[in-house]
C-alpha cells in the first residue's frame, strides 16, 4: 500500500523530468530566438561598442577599440555628471512623493465604504495616461499665461502668480516629478490598500484597547507591517524613475539650461543627436549598472517573499 502512495505523491508534488524531451526545446526555440535577437544580441553588441571609438558622423562602421576611454571620459564629462546628479535628485523627489502621497491616499480610502470603492476605481486612470500625453497636458496646464494649474496656484498663493514652473531649475524638476507622481501615487495607493487589508484588525484593535493613539498605531504597527510592500514598490519606482525620458522631451527639453537633463535623456542626446555611439554605449552601461543593482534587490526581495 505504501508504494503507490509514494509514487502518487511524487507525481503531484514534483515536476516531471523532461530534460531530454526534444519537444520542450522545439517549443522554446522561437521564444529564445526572439529574446536572443532583440535582447541578448543588442546588449552584447552595445557592450562591445562601448569599448570602441565610433562617431557616426565620421564612419558608418565602428572604429578601433579604445579600452576604457569611453568610461573614463564619462567621469570628466560635465554633461554626464550633471545628468547623474539630476537623475539622482529626480529619483529622490519622485519616489518619496509617490510613496508619501500613495500611502496618504491609501489610508484615506482604506475603509470599505461605497464612496471609497468608487474612488479606488478612479485611481487607476492617471496611471493609464500615456507619458507623452501627460507631458503635453502638464506643459499646457503650467503655462503662466493660460495654464489652469498656474492660475489655480496663483489664486491660492498670490506670491506664486505668474511663477514660471518650468523656468527655474528646482521647480522644473519638481514639476517633472509631479507629472510622474500624478500617475504613480494612485497606483501605489491601490497596492497599499491591498496591503492594509491584509493587516489583521485584531492587532490594531488590541493596540487601541491598550490606549494607543491613531498616530502611534500608524508608526508602530501599520507602517512596520507595510514595510515589505513599501520596499518593493519603492524599488519598482526607482527603476522607473531612472528611465525618465518622455516628459523631459515634451515639457522641458532638458532645460532650463540642462537642469532637467536626466541620464536617460542625456544618453539619447549622445546617441541620436551627437551620433557618438561608442560613448553613448558606455554611458548606457553605467546606467545599466545602477539599474541592475536595483533590479537585483527587487528580484531578490520578490524571491525571498515567495520562499
Amino acid at each position, binding site marked *: 500500500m505504501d508504494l503507490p502512495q509514494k509514487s502518487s505523491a511524487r507525481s503531484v508534488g514534483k515536476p516531471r523530468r523532461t530534460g531530454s524531451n526534444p519537444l520542450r526545446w522545439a517549443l522554446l526555440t522561437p521564444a529564445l530566438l526572439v529574446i536572443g535577437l532583440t535582447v541578448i544580441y543588442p546588449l552584447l553588441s552595445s557592450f562591445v561598442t562601448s569599448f570602441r571609438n565610433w*562617431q*557616426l*558622423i565620421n564612419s558608418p562602421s565602428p572604429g578601433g577599440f579604445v579600452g576604457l576611454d569611453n568610461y573614463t571620459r564619462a567621469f570628466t564629462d560635465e554633461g554626464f555628471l550633471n545628468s547623474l546628479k539630476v537623475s539622482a535628485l529626480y529619483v529622490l523627489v519622485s519616489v518619496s512623493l509617490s510613496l508619501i502621497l500613495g500611502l496618504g491616499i491609501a489610508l484615506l480610502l482604506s475603509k470599505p465604504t461605497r464612496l471609497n470603492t468608487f474612488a479606488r476605481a478612479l485611481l487607476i486612470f492617471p496611471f493609464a495616461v500615456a507619458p507623452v500625453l501627460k507631458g503635453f497636458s502638464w506643459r499646457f496646464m503650467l503655462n503662466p499665461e493660460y495654464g489652469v494649474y498656474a492660475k489655480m496656484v496663483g489664486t491660492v498663493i498670490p506670491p506664486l502668480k505668474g511663477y*514660471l514652473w518650468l*523656468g527655474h531649475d528646482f521647480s522644473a524638476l519638481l514639476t517633472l516629478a509631479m507629472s510622474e507622481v500624478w500617475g504613480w501615487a494612485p497606483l501605489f495607493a491601490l497596492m497599499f490598500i491591498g496591503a492594509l487589508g491584509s493587516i489583521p484588525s485584531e492587532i490594531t484593535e488590541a493596540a487601541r484597547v491598550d490606549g494607543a493613539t491613531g498616530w502611534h498605531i500608524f508608526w508602530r504597527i501599520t507602517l512596520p507591517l507595510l514595510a515589505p510592500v513599501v520596499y518593493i514598490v519603492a524599488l519598482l519606482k526607482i527603476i522607473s524613475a531612472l528611465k525618465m525620458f518622455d516628459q523631459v522631451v515634451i515639457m522641458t*527639453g532638458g*532645460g532650463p539650461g540642462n537642469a532637467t537633463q536626466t541620464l536617460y535623456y542625456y544618453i539619447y542626446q549622445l546617441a*541620436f543627436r551627437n551620433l557618438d555611439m561608442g560613448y553613448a554605449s558606455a554611458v548606457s552601461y553605467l546606467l545599466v549598472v545602477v539599474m541592475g543593482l536595483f533590479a537585483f534587490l527587487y528580484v531578490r526581495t520578490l524571491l525571498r517573499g515567495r520562499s
Partner: protein
Amino acid sequence: MNKVGKAFWKRLGLALGLILVLALGLVSVNAQGSIPYELKPGKPYNGTKIKFLICCLAAGQFAQLSKLTGEGSEFQQLTGITVEWENTPYESLQQKILVEATTGNTYDAVAWVDAWGEAIKPYLLPLNDRIKADKIDLKDYPSAYIQAGSDAQGNIVGLPLRGHPLILFYRKDIFDELKLSVPKTWQEVIRAAQTIQEKKPGMMGIAMYYKVNAGQNLFLWVSHLWGNGGDILDKNYHPIFNDERGVQATQAYIDLLRKYKVTSPAATTYAETESSTEMFQGRAAMWVGWWWYWARFSDPKTVVPQVLGKVGFAPAPGWGNNPPQTYALVWPIGIFKNSKKADAAWEFIKYVTNTDVQKKVASNRSDPAVADNTIVTFSGMEDPKVNEANGGIPKVGAEVLRTARTLPLVRTWAEIQSVLEVGINQMANGADVRETLNRMAKDVDAIQKRAGYYK
C-alpha cells in the same frame, strides 16, 4: 504597266512610306520633347517604384506635393514612376535617415533639415552632372539653400525642396493706431515694443523664444550675431561667437527679455510653437518666425477673430546699419548612394523642385488646411500669381533670402547646437553673458578637437 513604271511606283511608295515614318517619328519626338518640367521624354522609367523618406505630411506644401506625385497623379502619368512617400514622425526622421544612409537600401530619395546635413551628406549621390545635363539654373535658388545642400567637396547633394526665410509678423492695427513704423532693426523692435507695452497694457511687445528645443532658440540669436558682423566658427572651424561682436549681439538678444522686458518672462520656457501662439491669440504685437506661418495667420481656425486679417509682415530685423543677415532654413532633397533607382529618383526630384510645380502648390488656396506659401526659387517668389495668392509675402521672403545664410557646415553641428541652445537658455535665465559664452566656446572647442578639425 511596264516594269519601269512598276519600279517607279514601288520606289515612290517606299519613299513616301519612309517620309511618313520619319514625319511620324519627328511628330512623336516633338511631342515627347514638349514634356513639361524638364522630365525625360518617352517614360524611360515606366513602372519603376521609388521610395521617398520624408516627414511632416501635415505641412501644406508636402501634402500637396504628395498628391501631385502619388498614385494616379500628374507625375505618374508623365513618367510612369510611382512614388511612395514614407511619412516618418519628425522626431525620429533624423535617426531613420542615418540608419538608412549607413546600412539600408530601402529608400531612394530623402529630404532632410539643413542642420542634420553634414552627417548625412557622405551617403548621398552628387547631383552636379545631372544638374548640368538638365540645365537647372542654380542661380534661381537662394545661395544659402544651395550651400546647405552642398558637401565639403563642393558637390551638390541636395536641391532645395522646402525653405523658409525669417519674417517679422506684426499687428497692423496696433502699429496704425499708435502710428508706429515697421521696425527694420532689432534696436527699432525694442523701441516699438516699449511703446506698445506702454500704450497698450496687457499686450506684449514681441513674442520671443529661448527654450531648449531642437535648436530653435538659435534662430534669432544667429540673426543678431551675423547682423553684428560676428560668426559662430571661423574659417578654420574654431569657435568665435564669444568675441566682442558675439558678446554684444548676445547681450542684445538677452536684453530683449531681461533688460527691456519687451517679451513675456515665460519666453525662457517658450519654443517656436508657444511663442507663435502668443501672436495667434492676440497677446503679442510682433513675432519673428518662418514665412510659412503666414498661411496660419490667415486661417480663421488658428487665430482669434481680433487678429484675423490684421497681421502684416516685413523682412526680419537686421542690426543697425548693417545689411540684415538671417538664418534661412531649408529642406534639401537628394538621392541615397545605395539607391538602385537613382535615375527615376532624379526625375522625381526635378519635378518636385521645379518652379512651375512649386508655383502651382504655392498659389493653391482652395483648401486652407493645405495652403502653403512656401516656394524655393526666386522666380517663383517673384511670380505675380503666387504673390497675389499669398498677400505678397513671397516677394518679401525673396528680399530676405538674398542676404540670408545657412548654419556652419560642420559634421559636429548637432553637438555644437546642443551646447549653444543650452547656453542661450542659461543666459536667458540670468547667467552672465560673457562668462557663459566663454564656457560654451570652450565646450565647442573640445568638440572640434575631438572630431579632428584641429589639434
